[in-house]
């Protein structure tokens, strides 16, 4: 697999990770999964995904805390797509200038189009 095609899903809902993986793999992406922000940071030390699909309500380290941790580590070049039903998601999206905000439940074509758009933009960047 090409590391450039890796999408990281950060979500505590195992089923979301499982179906997200099926959907994204069927579309040609590789998926790395993390159950919370701490898991995700660990993975980021080893590899760099093309983009991050991030849930907000998670144990241990929630989505907002994860975004703060990214900022503190100066990891600002990996685009983040928020995927959440959380009512404060819009504020967080603005605060951290995330690449996109998807409201759960999300349609597959919207999810795929957003992931493709964001990853294309990332690849086009110098």
């Amino acid at each position: 697999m090409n590391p450039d095609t890796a999408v990281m899903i950060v979500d505590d809902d195992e089923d979301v990770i499982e179906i997200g993986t099926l959907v994204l793999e069927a579309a040609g992406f590789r998926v790395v999964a993390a159950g919370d922000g701490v898991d995700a940071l660990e993975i980021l030390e080893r590899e760099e995904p093309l983009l991050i699909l991030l849930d907000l309500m998670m144990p241990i380290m929630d989505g907002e805390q994860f975004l703060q941790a990214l900022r503190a580590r100066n990891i600002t070049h990996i685009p983040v797509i928020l995927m959440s039903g959380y009512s404060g998601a819009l504020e967080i999206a603005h605060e951290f200038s995330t690449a996109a905000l998807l409201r759960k439940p999300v349609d597959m074509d919207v999810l795929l189009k957003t992931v493709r758009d964001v990853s294309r933009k990332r690849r086009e960047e110098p």
Partner: protein
Amino acid sequence: MLHTRGDVISGEHGNPVRMVGSCWDVTDLTEATRRLERSRSLLEATLNATADGLLVIDRRGRVAAYNSRLLDLWGLKSQDVEPRTFDEMLAAVHDQLENGDACLRQVREMESHPEAESFDSLRFLDGRFFERYSRPQRIGGEIVGRVWSYRDVSEREQIMRRAMFLADTTRLLASLDVEPALDAVAHMAVPYLGDGCAVDLLGEGGPRRLLVVSRDPARPMLISLHATVLAGHPLTYNVGPLSYMAAPLVIQDTVVGALSFVAPPTRRYTERDLELAEELARRAALSVQNARLYRGTQEALRARDEFLSIAAHEIRGPLTSMRLAVQLIQQGMSPDALPKALDIIQREDRRLARFVDELLDLGRIRSGQLHFNFEDVDLNEVLQDVTTRLRSELTRAGSPLSISTEGRTVGSWDRFRLNQLVSNIVSNAIKFGLGKPIEIRLRQEHDTVTLTVRDHGIGIPADRQEQVFQPFERAVSARHYGGLGLGLHIVRTIVSGLEGRVWLESEPGAGTTVYVTLPLKRAAA
């Protein structure tokens, strides 16, 4: 009527020489004298019957007339004092007044303006309050003196001051910020109601002195609250030079605190003072209740909003997975992925059904309609069922499970509710167990069985350990852990229906142990 008179006129040697007789018609004079007598009698009767003290002073400052009420009001006795001049009288009362000099000034002012009328008030050191009127006395057109009248309005004044005090304190107590309001009220009560005022509030640990206001900070009010007041009874008592009174703050027959006052050394509290303290306490209690209700409402609104937000989250999760799975199948996916997608749909369907069940249970608990169907149930069997069903969750969490039982443990319980009880407790252990080992023990002793579920996860802070049994309460932020916060509330309700007991021991970072004891047979059965 005729008045006659005869006189003998004597000569040089005393011998009568002549007789003179005279005769007057005195009808008018007699009538005038009688009228004068009647007027004087009427005047005296009126003077002495009036509730006001009256004093007439002539232009030279001499007392022309006064009534007995005047002497009563001034605390003078007619047999001791025969007032002759106004100055003598004023000198006799000067020291009784709060501001004797001002009283004198007003008199002098009136002396220099004989034609003027006056109205002012006199406040006595003992708390009495007089209104004073004066107007010139005229005969014909000429001013010959001045009539002063004094009216004791102490009672009216007291009632007005009490009414104003209550109105002012009530305005303060309308605030929802109850502690500063009580502080302001205590500051208003000193010195009006005493030299010191203390406010105690009754909490779980007994009475807590919220605040003390003392007129003299060097001599703070140190008297602690009397047990009688805590029992809900107002009281006054005098010990040596000390006079003290206290009134309980009562909300719906429950004592929530008290107001207490200590009097200055010259004052003794009366029934009327206590009535005022009780009225103030009633208003303060209403304020405390008002603030509590407001906080309760705010809290309920916050809980509702949080509940709705969490409920939405709980539905959106499974819905997301289900929708993606369905759309993936519709788009024609690879055959080997199909069973996975179908599994997901089935799992999400169950999650949503469980969620709906939980909501329905909450509704039943709220309306007291959670019914139990008692039958012989083996708790050991229920435990095996639950752990088998939760096997995949355990595997995902990575928590090794050990179960220690003594075989069949049969009691008269509701199978479905027992299953739910065990399931909720074990699910919590998995959810908050950080993937560490979970130990379950089942022990029967005499007629009671004890279920113990121990995890080594995040634990619960001491101050949240009781609250987690309340609906919508959680020991963790909803941002971190989903769920409606109903699990342990449902557990407690079921345990109570089964006449058992549930409690927990926990330490943050070390884990939680939940204990459930259930009687094998119901006492009621």
